[in-house]
């Protein structure tokens, strides 16, 4: 009971007549990696945005460590220990890599007051994401892999208990993906962070998640271990169509 | 008394609409607040004055000439100068148009001096009287012409190929480029049309107001109010906004001491900005 770090009840978000997320109940246990998958438009990012406060809920409630966070402004939720990365990275233009990440350290959960201290903490984080040599580079000059790692570093600098990753692997090559998978595992196992991952790279998300939740057209259609999910008919049907699911179901 | 004020307000409101449409157009399409819009109006007024004083051309007849001249000048300014900053931040564009405005004011000052100029038309005292209400011929003429201009503009922006291109560019700059629209040329045309309308408005007000180079500023203030009230990108909105402003001004004088009028105007403006930035009629179009 007490090891549920994040929970949502009846979480709903509509845009006019569009049901982006509909009546989703979910629970995330402390220390686990929960993967969220679903075809495009399933509502995954919308759900994430509601958790971190960027989007308001139309209905329902979200709790973090048993405190209601739905309705709080993003910065309040961030202060409580929730941080996220964006699918389309949003670095701060006009600043260096170091400055970008330092902001996370300054205003995240720990609220470090001294700028120098924040920069030191930032440097150790840059080491973790393998960006140490590039700290004084202007963010406009980073390549996609570096930018993704910047997003991650910035979120980490906030020292989150709950880390929300939104397609952090999109645009990366296989080596980079493997590397990030390892990093996520380390963050979870060594640093004890709870992680919620949205991903399209199947092998990655199946490989690192303890549990998986599947969304389709805004609703949760399945939940379970990666193994269970890969055999679930409704999931296969959502991705590949009913006929294939029926065929596959017969083989499994 | 009230009826006369209402009529006066409506009659003059049409001119405000003409001013507002051009201003709103540039803002909506290019996201530029053209502080120099007022100076374009003044140029129109001065050109009309000069044509009348030197060649006896009736201000109404001078309108096509004034519009052509202003279109040309503005087109050139946009094409070769303003287009370079048009995609910049508000910092940049607003400061730039401020600079343009004082430059033009100075030029007008040099050419026409700071003395108040006015046009006294031979038929300025003619008019119709319906019951208690007087409808001066000049004002009726102004009203009619302003409405015609508004109507022509509406047709232009909705029915002509260029007008549609302007709309497209406003809604989606990149998309417009992709389908082959020469967007910077469109910008130049937009600015030209806006200035032409401003010039026409200037020619229209010349017979009824005394003009000097510094009237541009307050006029831009009114243009801004009209654009906000009516909503950006909406011709009908600018029309309504202009009328509303005209009404508020004339009817307002009856009830509120004039010193508080401006204050009321600005307070309403700030409130509209804060609580309903899309204006009374506009959509949150150009965001």
């Amino acid at each position, binding site marked *: 009971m007490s090891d549920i770090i994040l929970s949502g009840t009846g979480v709903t978000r509509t845009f006019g007549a569009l049901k982006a997320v509909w009546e989703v109940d979910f629970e995330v246990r402390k220390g686990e990696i929960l993967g969220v998958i679903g075809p495009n438009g399933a509502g995954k990012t919308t759900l994430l945005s509601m958790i971190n406060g960027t989007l308001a809920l139309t209905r329902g409630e979200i709790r973090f460590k048993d405190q209601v966070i739905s309705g709080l402004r993003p910065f309040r939720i961030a202060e409580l220990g929730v941080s996220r990365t964006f699918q389309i990275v949003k670095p701060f233009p006009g600043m260096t890599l170091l400055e970008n990440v330092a902001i996370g350290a300054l205003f995240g959960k720990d*609220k470090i007051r001294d700028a120098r201290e924040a920069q030191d903490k930032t440097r150790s984080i840059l080491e973790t994401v393998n960006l140490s040599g590039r700290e004084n580079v202007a963010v406009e000059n980073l390549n996609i892999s570096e930018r993704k790692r910047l997003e991650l570093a910035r979120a980490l600098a906030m020292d989150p208990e709950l880390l929300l990753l939104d397609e952090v692997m999109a645009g990366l090559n296989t080596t980079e993906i493997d590397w990030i998978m390892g990093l996520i595992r380390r963050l979870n196992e060594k640093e004890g962070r709870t992680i919620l991952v949205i991903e399209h790279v199947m092998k990655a998300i199946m490989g690192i998640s303890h549990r998986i939740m599947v969304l389709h057209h805004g609703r949760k259609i399945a939940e379970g271990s990666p193994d269970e999910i890969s055999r679930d008919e409704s999931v296969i049907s959502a991705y590949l169509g009913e006929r294939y699911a029926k065929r596959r179901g017969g083989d499994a | 008394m009230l009826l006369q004020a209402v009529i006066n307000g409506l009659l003059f409101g049409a001119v405000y609409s003409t001013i507002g449409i051009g201003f709103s157009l540039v803002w909506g399409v290019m996201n530029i*607040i053209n502080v120099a819009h007022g100076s374009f109006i003044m140029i129109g007024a001065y050109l009309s004055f000069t044509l009348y004083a030197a060649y006896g051309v009736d201000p109404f007849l001078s309108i096509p000439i004034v519009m052509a001249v202003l279109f040309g000048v503005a087109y050139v300014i946009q094409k070769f100068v303003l287009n370079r900053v048009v995609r910049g931040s508000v910092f940049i564009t607003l400061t730039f148009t401020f*600079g343009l405005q004082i430059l033009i004011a100075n030029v007008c000052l040099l050419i026409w001096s700071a003395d108040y100029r006015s046009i006294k038309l031979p038929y300025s005292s003619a008019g119709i009287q319906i019951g208690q209400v007087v409808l001066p011929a000049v004002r009726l003429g102004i009203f009619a012409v302003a409405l015609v201009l508004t109507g022509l503009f509406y047709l232009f922006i909705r029915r002509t190929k260029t007008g549609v291109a302007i709309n497209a560019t406003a809604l989606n700059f990149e998309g417009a480029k992709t389908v082959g629209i020469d967007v910077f040329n469109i910008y130049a045309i937009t600015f030209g049309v806006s200035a032409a309308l401003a010039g026409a408005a200037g020619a229209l007000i010349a017979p009824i107001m005394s003009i000097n180079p510094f009237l541009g500023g307050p006029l831009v203030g009114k243009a801004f109010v009209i654009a906000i009230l009516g909503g950006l990108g909406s011709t009908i909105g600018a029309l309504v906004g202009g009328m509303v402003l005209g009404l508020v001004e004339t009817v307002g004088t009856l009830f509120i001491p004039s010193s508080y009028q401006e204050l009321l105007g*600005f307070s309403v403006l700030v409130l509209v900005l804060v609580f309903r930035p899309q204006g009374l009629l506009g959509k949150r179009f150009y965001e």
Partner: protein
Amino acid sequence: MKAKWIVLAVLFVLFVAAPFLLTGFWVRLITFTFMFAVLASALNIIAGFTGYAAFGNMVFFGLGAYTTAVLMNKVGLPFPVALAASAGIAVVMSILLGLLLLRLKGHYFALGTLGAAEAMKYIVENMTSVTNGGRGITVPSMRGSPFMHNTIFYFIMFGLLILIIVVVWQLSRNRLGYAFKAIRANEEAAGVLGIDQTRYKITAWALSALFTGITGAVYAYWFSYIDPPTVFDVMWVVKMFVIILIGGAGTVFGPVIGAFILETISELVWSRFINLHLGILGLIIMLVVLFMPRGIISVVTQGKGLRDLLQGRRRPSSPAAGPPSSSNGGQS
């Protein structure tokens, strides 16, 4: 690094010696330039650092000026008290206006502040019993010789300038400044990173208003006469923006350098081309925006700048030009 400190030290000494070496005309001119530098630096805090182009910032200048004028003229309070009151009122007004207007973006914010400033001007004009309305109000002037007058105000403005430079220098490297810069860079992302945007925006504007209001108060005492059209004139802010553009937005010394450049040009032009003064100012504004939107400082600053430029390496872009505007206005 060393070179910069030496230059600053030399300049400091020169400026301190100036009133004793130059004529009154020049001393007043430099004082005026100091004033512009302070006003531009104050505007820089909310506009250059935080990204909110407050075109109505002179509302605080006017308020500061009038508070001091009224308190000294009608109530007979001494200048230091009036100054403190001006500062207080400016800050309070900035918080009130901020709560109302800082939710707006881009053009809407710029013009909202302009509207507020105009409204304030009319309010002041109409409170005739208190402010003497449109006729303007005089301030009991400081006693002493012209030399003393010039010199004292010279050093007051100089002191203000040094103070604000120190503050902005701190902002360029401390936590508060980071918040401002983050808000400017990407307000939404800033929120997600734990920055309370509302609180920090208001702080930025309050800081800006504080210095602007104090400067207004000093201006009233210095000139001994103010009227609403002068102290609430939008041209103050336009000039400040030009100064910021010339020097470089979001930098520490940019506004100072810009102020000196603009005033020098203004002086040269004013003395020779009075008729064209406005026109040339307008032209300068347009040229600066066209050709130097990042300011002189982005080329010269921090030593590395020029080297990077020559090697074709892109530096962090100076915030002056800003990203191609996606902030079309409206509420967040």
